[in-house]
C-alpha cells in the first residue's frame, strides 16, 4: 500500500521531517513574526541619536551595560517596565548585552537627564562616589561621525524598509537636510549643558560626541 513512499527514502525523510516539524513551525513562526514587529509608536532613530549609538558601540558601553529589562519584579522596580521584542525593531545590531557591571540602560531616558549625563560622563565619581565606570572626557572634544550615521540610516531605509520619511515617522531627508536637523537637535541638548567648550562647538556648527551620546541616552525609554 505504501510501496510508492517506502521506495523513495529521500522523499520519505523529507515527509517525516515536515510532519515532526509541523507543530514547531505553526507555533514558533507566526509568534516570532508578530513579536519582531515594531511596537506602536516606535520611531526609527534620528540622525543625531544614531550617531550617539555609534559612540556607544565604539566605546563599548555594552561591555558593562545591558539593554534588556527582564520580567522580574526586582528589575521592573529598578528600571521600569520589562522590555518587549518589538522595541528593538530598529536596532541594528541590538545591544542587549550579556553583562551588567553597571545597571541596565534600556529605559535610562526616563530617569536620567542631559545635565546628569554631562556630569556623569565627564567624571562618574562626581555624582556616584563609589563608581567604577571610566570617565569619558574625550567625548567632549571629539566630534561625532554624522556621515557614517547617515549612511547607515539611508541603508536601512532602502534595504530593510525602515520607515524613515514616511508620514508620522522620523524625517531623514537628504544629507544636507539631515545634517541641519541634527545640528538643531544638538543645539537643544547643548542648551541644557554647562560645559562651555561643548556649547561653543555646537554654536560653531560642530557636534561633539557627548551631545550625540546624550541624544541617544535620552531616546532610551
Amino acid at each position, binding site marked *: 500500500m505504501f510501496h510508492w513512499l517506502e521506495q523513495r527514502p529521500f522523499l520519505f525523510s523529507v515527509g517525516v521531517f515536515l510532519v515532526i516539524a509541523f507543530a514547531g513551525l505553526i507555533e514558533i513562526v507566526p509568534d516570532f513574526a508578530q513579536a519582531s514587529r515594531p511596537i506602536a509608536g516606535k520611531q526609527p532613530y534620528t540622525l543625531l541619536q544614531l550617531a550617539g549609538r555609534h559612540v556607544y558601540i565604539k566605546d563599548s558601553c555594552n561591555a558593562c551595560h545591558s539593554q534588556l529589562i527582564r*520580567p522580574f*519584579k526586582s528589575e521592573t522596580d*529598578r528600571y521600569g517596565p520589562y522590555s518587549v521584542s518589538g522595541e528593538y525593531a530598529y536596532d541594528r545590531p541590538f545591544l542587549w548585552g550579556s553583562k551588567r557591571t553597571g545597571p541596565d540602560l534600556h529605559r535610562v531616558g526616563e*530617569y536620567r*537627564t542631559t545635565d*546628569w549625563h554631562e556630569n556623569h560622563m565627564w567624571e562618574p565619581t562626581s*555624582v*556616584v562616589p563609589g563608581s567604577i565606570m571610566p570617565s569619558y572626557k574625550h567625548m567632549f572634544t571629539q566630534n561625532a561621525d554624522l556621515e557614517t550615521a547617515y549612511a547607515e540610516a539611508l541603508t536601512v531605509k532602502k534595504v530593510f524598509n525602515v520607515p524613515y520619511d514616511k508620514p508620522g515617522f522620523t524625517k531623514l531627508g537628504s544629507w544636507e537636510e539631515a545634517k541641519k536637523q541634527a545640528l538643531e537637535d544638538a543645539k537643544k541638548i547643548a542648551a541644557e549643558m554647562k560645559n562651555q567648550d561643548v556649547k561653543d562647538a555646537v554654536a560653531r556648527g560642530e557636534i561633539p560626541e557627548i551631545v550625540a551620546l546624550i541624544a541617544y541616552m535620552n531616546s532610551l525609554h
Partner: protein
Amino acid sequence: MNNMFQDNINQLSLLAAAIILALTVWVAGKYIKQMKTDRSTGELADENWDGIGEYKNELPAGWAYTFLGTMIWAIWYWTTGYPVNAYSQIGEYNEEVAAHTKQFESKWANADKETLQAMGEGVYLVQCAPCHGIAGDGMGGKAADLSVWGSKAGVLDTIKNGSKGLGFPMGDMPAGLLSGDAAEKVAEYVANGMKGDQPAEFATCAGCHGADGKGMNGMAPDISTYGTPEFVKMVLEHGKKGFIGTMVSFKGRLTPIQEKAVGTYILSLSHND
C-alpha cells in the same frame, strides 16, 4: 558508612532497588525463554520485505484504547489545553507582581513614621541619590538641596529666586515678590502649614495661590501642603524643569506608599524635629 544503613529512607531505597533488580531479572528471563520456545501463529499478510513477512493480527485491545485516548487528548490539548493553560513567563510575572502589591499594600497601609522613613531611605538611595547625593545636599548645586527644600529656608529661597518648571497652567512664579521682614513672616507661615493668623503680606501670594494657598483648583501648586509628603508626591508626578536642572517625573514608577515614604524621608532632612 554505618550511618548509611541506619537511615530508614536509605534502607527503604535499597529494598526497592533489590526488588526492582529481582523483577527485571525475572521478566527478562521469562521473555528470553519465550523467545526460544514460542511459535508464531496466524494468517500472513501479502506484503513481504526481503523475506520478512507480517501477520494480520488484530491490534491488542490495550494498544488500541491507548491510541484512541491519545487522539482525544490531542484534540483537547490543541483546542483547549495549550491555549488556555499554557505557561507564560509574563503571566507568572503578572501574578507575582499582583500578589506582591497586595501584600505590600496591606502590610504597610498604616505604617508609622519610623517605618516610612526607613522605607523611604531605601527608595531614596536607589532612585534619588545619584542626582541629589547620598546626603541629599544636591552635590554642590547639581540638584535641589533637600536639606533646605521643604522648610522655611526653602520657601524663602522660592520667594527670592522664583520657581519654574513644575508645569502648572499659571506658568512660572516670578522672583523677588517679597523681601526682608515680609518674606520672613510669609515663609514662616507657609512652612508651618499655613496655620494660625495669616500675615497681611500673604496677599501677594494669594493672587496666584489663593487665599487658602490651595492653588485655585490646580492653577498653581497647593502650598498649604508645602513641607508635607503630599507636596513631594505632587513634585514626583510633575517632574520639574527648573533653574537648577531637570528633575525627572516618577509618575507610575513608585507606589503611593513608596511616594509617601520617600517624601517622609527627604523631609526629615530639612526638618529637625
